[in-house]
């Protein structure tokens, strides 16, 4: 036990005395969370639009006010003539032109029916679609207001309700994915270097010629990184809540427990890489390349897994972050408890045990 503690203390010295490791350990997650949190979003904010108001009446003005008030839009100017729309689009930064025909208000009041034309720059179809939806929503809301005030005849409304994420906030979906990515990447990267570093520097030679038990060496290597990763986890979750406005509807303890499980899975994977490579460079490359792409592809937060061909879906089952993503979404967004995610939890535990066993088996008790 004394040996174990001495070994852990030594590992802590290594981490705290290497500024590069420290920076990677604590700087990288924060940068990644902020970068991904803000960059990875479906929301389109502050899109420039133009309005061509031929009606210039009460209704059109009210609608323009509403458009201007919306954070998704920024009314960049008014067009006098609908023909100018094309010229505006050609400049590039105008995404949407909204045209109110003459007699807009009157049509609305007397014919109970009026038309608004929305022209969108569909060179990027996804953006065009999203923006058109935003605009349609605003107009529909206005129409509902009118209906309530005027008690106009009944009409059938399609009612769309977005459950879990009523504001269609992009971050909600990304944050659990980003947390998975960050935890997995950092933990694998850090531990993958740890054993191979001793091999490279020759210290493994003296460690081997000692009564140290290989299992103890491996566990002692992982413990400091587990502790540091828990600090990291706290920072990452706090950032998600306060910076990215991520709700946590479920139990935060459960979230911590499941995240710790993912960390341990990642550490086991890192140890396996460390035990199978011969140089720090090799280990780093393997953990960066080997982790980044599968995690990005197969976690499900960037590309929906359901849309992938079957072989890829099967492969995705091997990626631990996929299961964590399901778990984290369930806890954070849906507020569900362990009964809903016990299967995924078991899968993660199983993966950890397999990885840990293989890496202990792979630990070389000799040099060659």
């Amino acid at each position, binding site marked *: 036990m*004394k*040996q174990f503690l*001495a070994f852990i203390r*030594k590992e802590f010295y290594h981490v705290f005395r*290497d500024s590069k490791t420290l920076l990677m350990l604590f700087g990288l997650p924060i940068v990644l969370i902020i970068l991904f949190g803000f960059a990875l979003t479906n929301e389109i904010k502050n899109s420039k639009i133009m309005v061509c108001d031929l009606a210039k009446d009460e209704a059109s003005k009210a609608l323009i006010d509403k458009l201007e008030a919306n954070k998704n839009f920024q009314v960049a100017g008014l067009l006098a003539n609908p023909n100018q729309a094309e010229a505006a689009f050609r400049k590039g930064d105008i995404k949407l032109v909204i045209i109110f025909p003459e007699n807009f208000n009157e049509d609305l009041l007397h014919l109970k029916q009026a038309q608004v034309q929305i022209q969108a720059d569909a060179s990027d179809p996804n953006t065009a679609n999203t923006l058109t939806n935003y605009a349609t929503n605003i107009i529909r809301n206005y129409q509902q207001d009118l209906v309530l005030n005027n008690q106009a005849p009944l009409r059938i409304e399609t009612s769309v309700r977005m459950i879990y994420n009523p504001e269609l906030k992009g971050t909600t979906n990304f944050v659990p994915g980003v947390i998975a990515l960050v935890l997995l990447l950092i933990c694998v990267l850090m531990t993958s270097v740890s054993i191979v570093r001793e091999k490279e520097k*020759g*210290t493994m030679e003296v460690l081997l010629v*000692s*009564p140290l038990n290989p299992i103890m060496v491996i566990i002692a290597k992982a413990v400091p990184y587990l502790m540091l990763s828990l600090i990291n986890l706290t920072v990452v979750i706090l950032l998600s809540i306060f910076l990215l406005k991520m709700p946590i509807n479920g139990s935060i303890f459960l979230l911590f427990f499941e995240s710790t499980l993912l960390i341990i899975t990642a550490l086991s994977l890192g140890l396996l890489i460390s035990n199978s490579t011969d140089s720090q460079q090799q280990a780093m490359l393997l953990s960066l390349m080997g982790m980044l792409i599968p995690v990005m592809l197969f976690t499900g937060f960037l590309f929906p897994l359901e849309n992938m061909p079957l072989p890829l879906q099967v492969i995705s089952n091997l990626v631990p972050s996929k299961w964590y993503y399901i778990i984290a979404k369930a806890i954070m967004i849906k507020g569900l408890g362990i009964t809903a995610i016990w299967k995924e939890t078991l899968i993660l535990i199983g993966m950890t045990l397999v990885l840990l066993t293989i890496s202990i088996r792979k630990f070389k008790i000799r040099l*060659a």
Partner: protein
Amino acid sequence: MPAVELQSISKTYNNGELKAVNEVSFSVKKGELFGLIGPDGAGKTSIFRILTTLLLPEQGQASVVGYDVVKDYKEIRKKVGYMPGKFSLYQDLSVQENLEFFATVFGTTIEANYDLIRDIYIQIEPFRHRRAGKLSGGMKQKLALCCALIHRPEVLLLDEPTTGVDTVSRKEFWEMLKRLKQEGITILVSTPYMDEATLCERIALIETGNILSIDTPEGIIRQFPKLLYAIKAARMSQLLRDIRQYPEVDSCHAFGEFHHITFRQNEDALAKLLGHLQNLQHQGLEIKAITPTIEDCFINLLAKA
């Protein structure tokens, strides 16, 4: 029971292409200071790694303090002190942290065995808070020796401990080894420096994986088969060429400021050579009979092998 014993140990690398150790046998008695002397690439490190159970021999048997290096590797790892050729302590840990770490790893404390390392540790104690990576070569070796000794090993295995260390530190190091020997610790040490051979009790000369000779340094020198002369003149490189071309000369090697010569037949060959060299206009000729060094013996054995 010998402290260390090797019986026709062989080891190859690259699937048998490179023979590193070729049927090597020798044994080190308990409490002996035994030197493994040979140039780089002679197979010294491979032998050390086999003895420290880090490599498996392909043939033969070896034991350390009575334990087999293959079967009982766990026992050996508890009982030997090993200092690899490359500095292998934690560079980012201080002198004291390194020593404490290795003491704990071997289940002991610095205090428990302080008397054994005191003479050595005292010299590096003023720097005990300095990181090991920032020590000089000589101090690194002293620290490594302390770490290898901290659990009072029965056998000390030192792979080229004086390589890359200045002359003064080298001398100090050998004196430390002598003191450790008095404590009853068996020491197997390797070195590429032939002049260090005489500091050992017994030595094995080794080259490309083959043992050339095993004896006391005096015994090896005594076995030198011929008379040896040292010669010098004004133009040394010309002298070397001229002597080598002379038919009665058996060998001639540059040794610092002298060339060492042996002859095929010793009777009046020397006088004939001197006459020959004077004919060749060599100035300042000086010649004397000398006792061979270990290096002379090594070269001689190598030429025979």
